[in-house]
């Protein structure tokens, strides 16, 4: 029973973090613009985050080290600190986008002023993170986010063209759309590969006291959690492709994204999607705020962990509270959360190699890992994805500029 509950860690990371505002925005827009054509980017991105997360979980279970502990050890203070600052900036942008996203969903449900809702969301998350244990956060948001599975039902109900979907799993290039296609391909891979998810996952493994006997649990968690993420991500893109593409609608608002499920299934599906979004994006608020605090604490060697009472890890507690405050201040200025999301996703892929490389090096280090060191498959995939995210990091800014953030 305990093991089954522990799998919830992966489910939350997949639903509460994986399917967050960035995924909803990029997947829906890509589906509306290109139909199924970019399904390959979903698969490539999800396999990549699975490879990265599995290595992080294995390193955490074997050595008790989380990501920014490894960044500091492998890169030293100065280079590691640059990586920390860049990583924290992206986590903060993501957090701001997620807070704004929760407020947007609440606005659809309650019709209250946006700024009031943003402040209420921030207060609610401060209280929740202060009072709730790691396990409770994991279960509440993880299982609440499962309501988004209604997108899977919607996609099946729309009768997708399976042949075309199958063909789209092979990487291709849309010559007619050029840079815009490239922007969404990089955006989808980046949205699938958001680094905060792995910061949270690896720290969560240590929160839950993983050790060598939990290596199998780590694999199961990654396969189940990320498998669910893949299913949902594909369903969101297919729904958008079937509903919005024929009418030429570009879903630039979360409310429009939710309508994708209402069209085939009716009003109850719309309510379910909005509830799912509330929990999934809310889960990402919790994950990003905590991930920001985990990173700082691990880099400087502070006591950290939700398993401690707030006064037992006070600087860690203050760090997530400050992250929450700063994220709120960004989004309460009135900046569009969807715009913040797009910047957060694009910049996340730029900083990704900094936190990816130390994990790959340590996972290959037998003095750290013993017999849990990377096998040939993990190594091939690990180095392939380092090359891929490096190329994506180099291409991200030029594509952002060339396409005016995907506008073509």
């Amino acid at each position: 029973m305990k093991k089954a509950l522990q799998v919830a860690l992966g489910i939350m990371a997949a639903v509460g973090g994986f399917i967050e505002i960035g995924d909803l925005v990029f997947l829906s827009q890509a589906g509306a613009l290109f139909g199924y054509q970019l399904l390959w980017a979903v698969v490539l991105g999800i396999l990549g985050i699975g490879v990265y997360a599995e290595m992080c979980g294995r390193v955490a279970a074997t050595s008790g080290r989380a990501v920014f502990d490894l960044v500091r050890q492998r890169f030293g203070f100065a280079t590691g600190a640059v990586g920390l600052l860049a990583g924290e900036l992206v986590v903060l942008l993501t957090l701001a986008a997620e807070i704004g996203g929760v407020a947007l969903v609440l606005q659809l449900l309650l019709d209250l002023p946006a700024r009031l809702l943003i402040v209420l969301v921030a207060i609610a998350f401060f209280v929740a993170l202060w009072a709730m244990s790691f396990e409770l956060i994991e279960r509440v948001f993880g299982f609440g986010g499962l309501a988004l599975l209604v997108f899977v039902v919607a996609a099946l109900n729309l009768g997708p063209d399976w042949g075309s979907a199958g063909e789209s799993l092979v990487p291709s290039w849309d010559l007619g759309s050029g840079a815009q296609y490239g922007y969404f391909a990089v955006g989808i891979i980046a949205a699938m590969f958001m680094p905060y998810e792995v910061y949270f996952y690896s720290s969560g493994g240590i929160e839950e006291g993983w050790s060598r006997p939990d290596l199998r649990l780590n694999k199961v968690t990654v396969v189940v959690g990320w498998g669910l993420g893949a299913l949902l991500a594909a369903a969101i893109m297919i729904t958008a492709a079937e509903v919005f593409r024929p009418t030429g609608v570009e879903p630039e608002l979360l409310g429009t994204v939710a309508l994708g499920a209402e069209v085939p299934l009716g009003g109850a599906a719309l309510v379910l999607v909005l509830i799912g979004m509330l929990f999934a994006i809310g889960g990402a608020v919790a994950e990003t705020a905590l991930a920001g605090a985990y990173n700082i604490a691990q880099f400087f060697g502070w006591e950290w962990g939700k398993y401690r009472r707030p006064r037992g890890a006070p600087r860690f507690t203050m760090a997530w509270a400050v992250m929450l405050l700063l994220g709120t201040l960004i989004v309460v200025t009135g900046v569009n959360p969807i715009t913040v999301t797009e910047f957060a996703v694009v910049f996340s892929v730029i900083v990704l190699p900094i936190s990816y490389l130390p994990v790959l090096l340590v996972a290959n280090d037998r003095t750290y890992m013993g017999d849990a060191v990377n096998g040939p498959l993990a190594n091939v995939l690990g180095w392939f994805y380092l090359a891929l995210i490096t190329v994506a990091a180099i291409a991200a800014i030029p594509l952002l500029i060339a396409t005016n953030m995907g506008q073509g």
Partner: protein
Amino acid sequence: MADEPELIDLAFMVLDRQLVDSDGRRCGKVDDLDIDGEPGGPAKAVALVSGPEAWRAGKHGPIGWLLARVFSGDDTARVHVETIDSLGVEVRLKLPAAALGLAHGEDRGADFIRPIPGS
């Protein structure tokens, strides 16, 4: 010359590693080593240095200087090597952090948040 490789190994084994006190609490990182010895003679590590003074020591550039300014309220501690209990992926110490002058920032932080209900 025979001591040189040993010194390099020691630096690799302890620099930037997590410090954990005798109560099992994380209490900082090994930011530097105090080395005793004359040029050309044998060198010996006498203490682990943990805290912002070590960041601004010149070898970490502007980022070290900036972070040392941000955390200037934190104390810098020198932990004698004889208080090391074990060296591994983390450095375990024989005494509580407070007795070694480590993690004062945690105590100040705890004082700050203690008045909040549920702390």
